[in-house]
């Protein structure tokens, strides 16, 4: 096996193997489990770094295994794959740290971390899938590996959330499968390619391809929480905070949004999709989702539910960017894939901190939280401002590119949608910030579990990850023009897709 094949398999193995070992570990082997977890996460990060360097130098990494005559499992690392893989690898490390702290002393941790590692393996597979078949394999694996995490607590509420999650995602998977097999029947086993591969079929297939597009987008749209397929996401917030982070930032909704990117750019090809009139309806769906998600978020008193609706809205920024025909919009969508992940994971980490430390679950209980937990609240504020698109945050960068993209594509209504969403974002985030910083703290918190020790407001392991991701939120904006920023990488991908100059 060539070194390049081994490298790409090692990326999958770096979470799969520790995960499988963790499954069989006894509950009491805490130290070994933690070591395995961290070893896997760090190893993955290093491997992704090696690949990043290689891919930008033009190296090709791929692995192919034929499962049936004419049906290949293909894993390969291209620029788009690495955008998502890097995001997941980085955030996985932080989420792992956070989860170790969060779950300290709770039961069934071997099971939890086992499935946790499987989730990340599946996400890496989705990122590096080289064709639709492989994408689907890992996409469904992700569904299965997440279910035990969603129902981890075993309460009736968790069970209900898990059932809703399954009903949506398996249903979506069925649609996706139909679409994928259909395309397979038309073209045979074809790898993802810049500019898509369906345009070669010719105009006779236009109607079929439009219908298949509907199937595929509906399939990935469930995970991307496109309205009206978003119903599972607010229900799934019953899961423990690290799982929410996984669902909202690292893996699940990202997998859906990433799927939209792959389908539009590398299956249909953005120009061919435009010629089939597919992009405008997609943009319309995204716009509706953006506004509807933000609007619903306004009325949620449960903090995690409010964040969940916020995710519904924000993930569709990515879809909207994809649907804006033009390189600038593409960059906006791609870069938001990363930026939204960083910001949203910060928010969920902080929400978890409030719940774990103070027993605060509701927005109305957050009065004075900023004084009791200043660092957490600071991180929360940075991320929330980023979501609104405030200057010097990652959110501002994505929003600027998306607005330019809308203007370039001549879709001015999309610009208005983005502005409306920003206003709504402010309307549901600012009251939280105001409560946390300006209102006096109550005499007694709902359920204070971790006492403050001097300046340390909660456990170290709970505090460090949100601070780190909050700093990344700012860094992504401040260093946006450097060669290694998400923005630079997104521009590289867009340049390859449109086979033209770098936007």
């Amino acid at each position, binding site marked *: 096996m060539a070194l390049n094949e081994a490298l790409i398999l090692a990326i999958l193995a770096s979470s799969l193997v520790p995960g499988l070992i963790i499954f069989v570990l006894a509950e009491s082997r805490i130290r070994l489990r933690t070591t395995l977890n961290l070893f896997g996460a760090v190893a993955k990060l290093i491997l992704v770094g090696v690949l990043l360097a290689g891919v930008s130098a033009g190296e090709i990494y791929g692995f192919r295994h034929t499962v*049936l*005559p004419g*049906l290949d*499992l293909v894993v390969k690392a291209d620029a788009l794959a690495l955008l998502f893989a890097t995001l997941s690898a980085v955030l996985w490390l932080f989420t792992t740290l956070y989860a170790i702290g969060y779950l300290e002393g709770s039961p069934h941790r071997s099971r939890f971390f086992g499935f946790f590692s499987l989730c990340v393996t599946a996400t890496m597979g989705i990122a590096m899938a080289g064709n639709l078949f492989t994408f689907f394999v890992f996409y469904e694996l992700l569904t299965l590996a997440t279910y035990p995490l969603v129902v981890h607590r075993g309460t009736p509420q968790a069970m209900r959330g*898990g059932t809703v999650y399954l009903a949506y995602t398996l249903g979506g998977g069925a649609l996706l*499968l139909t679409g994928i097999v259909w395309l*397979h029947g038309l073209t045979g086993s074809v790898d993802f390619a810049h500019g898509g591969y369906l345009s070669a079929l010719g105009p006779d297939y236009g109607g079929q391809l439009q219908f298949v597009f509907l199937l595929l987008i509906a399939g990935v749209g469930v995970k991307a929480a496109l309205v009206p397929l978003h119903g599972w996401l607010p229900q799934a917030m019953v899961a423990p905070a690290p799982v929410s982070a996984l669902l909202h930032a690292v893996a699940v909704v990202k997998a859906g949004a990433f799927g939209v990117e792959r389908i539009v750019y590398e299956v249909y090809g953005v120009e061919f999709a435009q010629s089939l009139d597919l992009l405008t309806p997609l943009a319309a769906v995204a716009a509706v989702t953006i506004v509807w998600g933000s609007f619903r978020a306004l009325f949620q008193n449960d903090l995690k539910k409010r964040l969940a609706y916020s995710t519904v809205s924000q993930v569709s920024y990515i879809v909207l960017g994809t649907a804006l025909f033009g390189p600038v919009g593409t960059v906006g969508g791609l870069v938001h894939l990363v930026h939204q992940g960083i910001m949203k994971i910060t928010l969920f980490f902080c929400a978890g901190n409030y719940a774990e430390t103070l027993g605060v679950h509701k927005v109305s209980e957050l009065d004075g939280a900023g004084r009791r937990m200043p660092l957490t609240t600071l991180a929360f504020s940075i991320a929330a401002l980023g979501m609104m698109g405030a200057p010097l945050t990652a959110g501002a960068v994505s929003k600027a590119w998306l607005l330019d993209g809308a203007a370039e594509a001549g879709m001015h209504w999309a610009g208005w949608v983005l502005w409306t969403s920003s206003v709504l974002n402010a309307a549901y985030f600012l009251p939280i910030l105001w409560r946390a910083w300006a209102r006096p703290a109550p005499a007694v918190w709902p359920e204070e579990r971790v006492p403050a020790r001097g300046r340390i407001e909660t456990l170290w392991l709970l505090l460090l990850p949100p601070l780190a991701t909050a700093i990344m939120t700012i860094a992504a904006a401040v260093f946006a023009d450097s060669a290694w920023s998400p923005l630079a990488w997104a521009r590289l991908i867009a340049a390859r897709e449109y086979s033209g100059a770098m936007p």
Partner: protein
Amino acid sequence: MTDPIAWLILLPLFWATAAFLLGPGRGARLAIAALLAQCGLALQLAADVIDGGARTHAVGGWGAPLGIDLAVGGLSALMLVLTQAIALPLAVYARAYFADGAPAVRYFWTLTGFLLAGLNALFLAADLFNLYVTLELVGLAAVGLVAAGGSARQVAAALRYLFAALVGSVMYLLGVALIYGAHGTVSLQTLAPLVDARAPAAVWIACGLMLAGLMLKTAIFPFHYWLPPAHGGAPAPVSALLSALVVKASFYLILRLSLEVFAPLAATAATALGLLGAAAIAWGSWQALRTVHIKMLVAWSTVAQLGYLFLVFPLLAPDGLALQAGVMQAIAHGLAKAAMFAAVGVLMLATGRDTLEGLAGVAGRMPLTLFAFGLAGVTLMGLPPSGGFLAKWLLIEAALTHGQWGWVAVVIAGGLLAAAYVFRVLRQAFLLAPADSPFHPVPRSMEWTAFVLATASMLLGLQGVELMSLLAAGS
């Protein structure tokens, strides 16, 4: 000397008889050793077929049509490998399961030996009348295994099963009689060139009778009534053998006869068979969603999964997609269902209860077994990367290629229904256990055999090329 074809039949007959001579309950170690040898023989045969194509063994040296031929091709070699590969881990499982000397074990090993001999003989037979004898061998052994538990429920289930099996056999036999009357031979090889679409009415009737008889034995809707009590009521290793292998045997026969000798007539019934398959999926799944007994749930799932096998018939075409799908489904379901019954047997022993409710909390106590159940469930749902997924993929592709939309919907809906009933179990297992629930330790070997079978059904999805090249060899 070492022609695996003949030894695959004689060896199990030998050890079955030896187990009988050893006395009630004895023979486990002998069976496991012999099954190891049978696995080797089956693999050797598969390798032979890949290298040298299909071949026959003329019993008695006469050759058809005067004598009886045994024939092996890609399809039969696959079924033989599957049979031995499932039987071996199940034997290990059964040895632990029956360690307490339950009454059902007294004739378990010898009956199992006859059952496996019958299955192997059936897969190898190339003679319509010889097939009748092998069908009886399989049927009586299976009924004996179900009845051996001795409770009223089991005896009633066995009797119901026996009537279905016997009536099925006699219908098949009348079909054979008509074929002999029409063509003067029962050798498949001799018959093949004689049967064409202008066959006389008696041959059509014969085909119909044989098909109906075999459908009764396969328990396809609406002939499924005997299966759930028999498979749901038998001891776990027996249920596993029956669901994984025995019902597949008569399906294999339908498939083989409709592909080879009766191909010119088979297309007539194809759509009807597909519709029955769809009905089986719907009805079996619905019942699996309703039952409160965990083992009945798995048994009803067999009814549903058999439906998939019959979806193959309307889609059979020279491109071979549907045939591949059917074979893949048969193998994947065989492994997964064996694993599932084995896992359920462990869970029932451990909790001492047979209802879904009793499963609360097993996720924490028996993670390995639950994981095995889950993996097997993934195959039944047809999710990647399992063998069941490849089967589903091929079925959908075959249906789309021929523009037959309805079947796509059936396959997709069937997968979702399977998910619904599999997750009924998993969901229950994740619930918190009541504090006072009793819990009995179970031998680890049982947990691991279930897990190995489930993992095999999963990894099958990555080895499709090898399986399909064996299937294509010698056909």
